[in-house]
């Protein structure tokens, strides 16, 4: 097996699986997404980045743990479990990093110790199968927890190499906050499940979850919009004195921060 740099869990075969991308403390959207997926899928897996951006990080962690949602760790969980000083999000722009730091300091201060210990126990990857195809779940990419896989910058030859290198048919990831998929053959490709934590930079406050299930003999993806009480979340963020820029995003659906990583096509699609 290739070196995946972290513990991998083998989870077996499923007919359908629901995926939760970056939650960023949006516990209200998490509740709604789990309602939406209930009875629709065999199991649900959360792909890391439970904290950041939103308010009261423990509320998200309580839901995940009470309902025993299967989870892998993201860069946030790695950073918190290691007691790191920053989120290791992988931004390169100074303004992006300033906002990321505000989020991380808030989240670190408000996450209870017991939850942080649980984060340290999470695997880095899960392998499972649907319709006989091997599926590898990771946070950023199979090789790096904070690698950004954007739709317009993740080309087919690169996908083919990643699938070969990691002995899998399908890679399922999050980290960028935008959902997309690219298949190079039926059941072979990359699915980025997007995020529950903030809208998809499309001018609407809805957020996204994804289901992968068998269709015509191969795993196929369906992205599901999640409507939730974003106004309540925005008010809670205000009382927690989180940055107005973040609250604007929750209300309007347009990203206002952490934009500089976006490739040209994704940047052009947003307002800022």
């Amino acid at each position: 097996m290739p070196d995946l740099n972290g513990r991998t869990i083998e989870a077996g075969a499923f007919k359908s699986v629901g995926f939760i991308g970056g939650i960023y403390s949006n516990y209200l959207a998490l509740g709604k997404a789990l309602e939406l997926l209930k009875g629709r899928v065999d199991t649900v897996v959360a792909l890391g980045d439970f904290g950041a951006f939103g308010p009261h990080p423990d509320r998200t962690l309580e839901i995940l743990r009470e309902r025993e949602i299967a989870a892998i760790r993201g860069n946030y969980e790695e950073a918190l479990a290691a007691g790191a000083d920053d989120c290791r999000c992988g931004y390169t722009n100074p303004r992006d990093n300033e906002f990321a730091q505000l989020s991380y300091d808030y989240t670190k201060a408000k996450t209870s110790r017991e939850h942080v210990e649980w984060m340290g126990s999470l695997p880095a990857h899960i392998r499972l199968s649907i319709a006989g195809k091997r599926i590898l779940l990771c946070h950023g990419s199979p090789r790096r927890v904070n690698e950004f896989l954007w739709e317009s910058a993740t080309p087919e030859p690169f996908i083919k190499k990643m699938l070969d290198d990691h002995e899998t048919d399908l890679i399922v990831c999050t980290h960028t906050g935008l959902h997309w998929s690219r298949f190079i053959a039926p059941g072979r490709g990359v699915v980025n499940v997007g995020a529950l934590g903030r809208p998809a930079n499309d001018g609407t406050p809805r957020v996204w979850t994804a289901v992968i299930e068998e269709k015509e003999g191969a795993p196929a993806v369906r992205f599901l919009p999640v409507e939730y009480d974003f106004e309540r979340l925005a008010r809670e963020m205000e009382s927690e004195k989180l940055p107005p820029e973040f609250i604007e995003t929750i209300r309007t659906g347009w990203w206002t921060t952490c934009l500089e990583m976006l490739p040209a096509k994704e940047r052009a699609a947003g307002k800022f």
Partner: protein
Amino acid sequence: MEASAELINTEQRYPFSPLFALDTLWLQVAGTLCNLRCTHCFISCSPTNHSHEMMSLEDVRRYLDEARQMGVKEYYFTGGEPFMNKDLFAMIELALKQGPVSILTNGLLITSKTAARLKSLSDASDYSLELRVSLDGYDAETHDAVRGLGTFEKTLKGVLNLAAAGLNPVITAVEVNDDLGARQGREKFLACLKSIGLTKPRLKILPTLRLGAEINRTRAYESWESLRGRELTKDESLALQCSSCRIATSNGVYVCPLLIDSPQARLGETLQDSLRPFELKHQACFTCHATGFSCRT
């Protein structure tokens, strides 16, 4: 005596940078030929510098074919001035079939017609086409001092042509004055870009490199600015661009865009030839390590 000899050897050893994966392929499409003669150019490009000639469409096709087999993630076209290569549009079209492309330009040759052609190439691809335009300051005085009289206005015109065509370039500024990298300088720069009509300004700031023409403008590297005797952790190695890039030129494949003037940095004729670890002997390697800088956007 033996012990001290060993000590000296240790001190003179340089760390190696292994290639973890070939993610980024640079193509020196314009060689060292440029329509400007900037005083900070790390490879001293000019209208008469033929150290590296323009690449032909066939050269580029050969490297792209090899890169596709190897699963390369992204492509960067540079020079010199890429828009001086008559086959540039065909090269872009070819590369955009297999991945995202960034073009590094001084913007002087970007007419509104050129910008419109670029936009249609971008629209025809699933992958992003990035234009990175060099603007070394937010006023003509700073910019023209290194790039030549009148070039600030001409570059701005190119930038505005791109914006009018619906392409949003990344403005790249070399930190020729100390204030650019600081928060205030950065914000001033962004405000300037907004004021000329870029609604979503994108800005990348690069450090100067004590190479090429820059040696005469400021200074060369000093002897202590070197990675001699240093050991790098895996994370430090991964942070170096050479752990995931190579650059193809008309003279073969080199380790990175900064070192195409250095014979020691030429690794072979093909990409396959060039995959071995690179000994970080060059003083520019010190800049990449110390500043965390990458030529990537």
